[in-house]
């Protein structure tokens, strides 16, 4: 079943800003990541689904019900913002209870739910504090608890971890993903971070200049992007050979050229250290190729790069 379906959805701010003619269905119960560079329209997409922006044209269905004109407070979605927006005049517990009070849930029932969700997110000790007494990570945990307390059908996450430091971000995002998956909630998470997208997503949807340029299961989108723009967002190598584009992920090469269908004789230009691997930059017929190499091996100065994972697309199609 489709939890959210967008049909020819457009939200236009100016001629070139907004989102344009987006057609996508977000399958129920999956963790969806919308990936795109800054200004691609990711947040706009979430805001339209949440009802904070009205679409210029097209349809939006949530659980097969058209919600084009529904105000945000009548949509079965919860939005978690990039910056945790906790109400400054309310204690943590009152912030978490806020949506239940809006729905008129009985106080004792609401409090018990709040305590349960607080335990789940490891913020049980913080319930009596004011928002300004919390760290960044704690604030985001509270805002997620608040979004989850009503057990919404859909949770929208707008780059929720981008303001956190790396180690906290990596731990928290996986922890929250597990909680959301266990609760069976459909998640639409927008980010510009490819690592985050690849780690978390069941399905990836790529936005580029306000247009959806690819959409599908994570591995398929990563290995075989359907457009050159999607490949560009994924930071894949793009080699133009007579109008035909070879799309090669950075881990799509092998240095072992024996029994290789396609070989690219290349020269090493430079190497860069990355977490977990080394990035070697090779030059092939005027193209710079970025190749992930295991840390323990040293990249040869001259190599016959073997393409083990690539796809071919006509360059002119959408570039």
């Amino acid at each position, binding site marked *: 079943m489709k939890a959210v379906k967008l049909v020819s959805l457009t939200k236009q701010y100016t001629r070139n800003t907004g989102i344009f003619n987006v057609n996508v269905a977000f399958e129920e119960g999956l963790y969806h990541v919308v990936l795109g560079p800054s200004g691609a329209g990711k947040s706009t997409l979430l805001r339209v689904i*949440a009802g904070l*922006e009205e679409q210029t044209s097209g349809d939006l269905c949530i659980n097969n019900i058209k919600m084009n*004109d529904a*105000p*945000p*407070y009548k949509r079965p979605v919860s*939005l978690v913002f990039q910056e945790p927006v906790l*109400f400054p005049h309310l204690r943590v517990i009152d912030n978490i209870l*806020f949506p239940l009070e*809006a729905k008129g849930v009985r106080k004792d029932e609401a409090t018990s739910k709040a305590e349960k969700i607080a335990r789940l997110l490891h913020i049980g000790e913080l319930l009596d504090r004011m928002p300004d007494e919390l760290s960044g990570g704690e604030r985001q945990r509270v805002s997620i608890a608040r979004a989850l307390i009503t057990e919404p059908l859909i949770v929208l996450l707008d780059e929720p971890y981008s303001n956190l430091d790396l180690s906290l971000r990596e731990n928290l995002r996986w922890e929250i993903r597990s909680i959301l998956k266990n609760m069976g909630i459909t998640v639409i998470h927008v980010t510009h971070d490819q690592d985050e997208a690849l780690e978390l997503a069941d399905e990836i949807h790529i936005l580029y200049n306000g247009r959806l340029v690819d959409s599908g299961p994570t591995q398929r989108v990563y290995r075989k992007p359907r457009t050159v723009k999607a490949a560009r967002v994924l930071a894949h190598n793009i080699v133009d050979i007579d109008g035909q584009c070879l799309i090669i992920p950075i881990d799509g090469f092998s240095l072992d050229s024996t029994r290789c269908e396609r070989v690219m004789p290349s020269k090493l230009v430079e190497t860069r250290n990355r977490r977990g691997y080394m990035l070697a930059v090779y030059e092939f017929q005027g193209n710079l190729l970025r190749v992930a190499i295991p840390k323990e091996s040293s990249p040869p100065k001259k190599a016959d790069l073997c393409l083990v994972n690539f796809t071919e697309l006509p360059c002119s199609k959408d570039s």
Partner: protein
Amino acid sequence: MSNGLTSGLKRFQLKASIAGLFTVFFLYYLPVLNGLKDAFKTRLFLYILNNPVISHSLKFTVEQATLSVILSILVGVPAGLVLTGLGYRASRWIRTILFTVFMAPSMVVVMGFTSLYGENGILSSRMHLFSRLGEGFTGILAAHVFYNAPLIAIMVYNSVASIPREYWDLISSAASLSSRTVWRRVLLPYMAPGIASGSLLAFIYCFMSFAIPLNLGGPRFSTLEVNIYMYYKILQNDRIAASIALLQYIILLSIIAVMIKVSSEAPHAPLTVIAKARTPRSARLLSLSYITIFLLYLIAPLVGSLYYSFYNPITGTYTISYYRHVLSAIYDPRLGIPPINVLFNSLYYAFMTVIISLGISTLLSIGWSRINEVLVVSLLAISPITLGLGLLRTIPPQIPVWIPIILAHTFAGLPLALRSIRLGLERVSRKYIEASFSLGENLWGTLFRVAIPISRQSYIIAAAFASAISLGEFSATLFLRTVKTTTLAVAIYQYRSLRMFGEAYAASGVLLLLTLITIYIITRLEGVNSSESR
């Protein structure tokens, strides 16, 4: 509240705005139009223009307002400039005093002037020259300067303090610049709009002045506002009263149109305080002497009236018997009710004024637009007596009189309460509104559970403004009241008319204390707000 979230929110803002505008129109513009309807006859209007008493009153009203404004500028501009050269703490204290004087109830000021410059006044009994400040034309001018020079000083201070710091750095680095050039090229362009809008506001206040000419002026020096009161209440000629009110309304509306134009060009309020000006020692001494005399002029009447509230000049002893009297629950035949009821009336009206002001201000602020602004600023052209006249002629006699009194008090407090609430709600970040919506709260819930609590300080300030103005309101209350609805301000007038000066001073002391409490709240919270915005 933020704009443009969804069409639902826009509709909500529009509905709130229409409700607010309708309330203002229904409660204020409609009664005023009804009150003035007789005056729209050309013959009647020509009659009052040719009436020597009224033309004299018009001439006097314009003269005293013009002279008062000129004197206020002459006194207030140097005070404002001296303030900018003081340290932040000193200037903040002095600005609080100036604000207190500006907010002081008119009858408290009348009693203050009486205590110093009136018959047997502290200063006039020692030097007869001072008695000229306690009565007649000079008395009116002195009291108007007392009120309006602080206003001008604050506006000058704000204008100069808004000059970017880089300008001062530039001036100090360019040694060749003469002080005349600095004055002409920097100070004056910044100060001029502030002085202009401050002067227009002062002119409006002086033009509509009622309590001061009524108490200090006497029959020879009565403003148009006093004449409306006299024609309606004493001579019982409501048609002439309405015609004078219309004449006054037209003049004030023209001034306000100019004021709207001028204020749109005025610089914004300061965010930073300029550095201490480097002035020679002698000039600094002169500045400090000037500001000290200015402050003495402002504080002395308030202290004088407090002094006389504890002093019995006949026995030459100190006493609290006047306070005992004004707080007594025993029926007073001269007031027609127990004096404590006067205090209760004032507090009750202030409370109701706060509730209604906050409600109307919230509605108007949610959907704030240019139309709201024009309509609300135009309210300044309606004098309290004109409104009182309209309410008396519109509201059926079976309606209890405390209702129009509260409406008149709300009217007086609305501009300041509205300003505070509007700024408070505008400061509520859009992100909180969006978060509330996305968490399932509807429009009203978001207003009451998020926007208002977050801007609660602005609401407290608005409430303090509304209550301070209600407590001190004199003109419309005197016009509308019955024996049972007498307030502290009116009681002071009655005691003074009956020459019960001790009781008048004590009632004035109670009113001053209540006003000081509200001013304390305003200045404390305004400080917090401004530091937050910084």
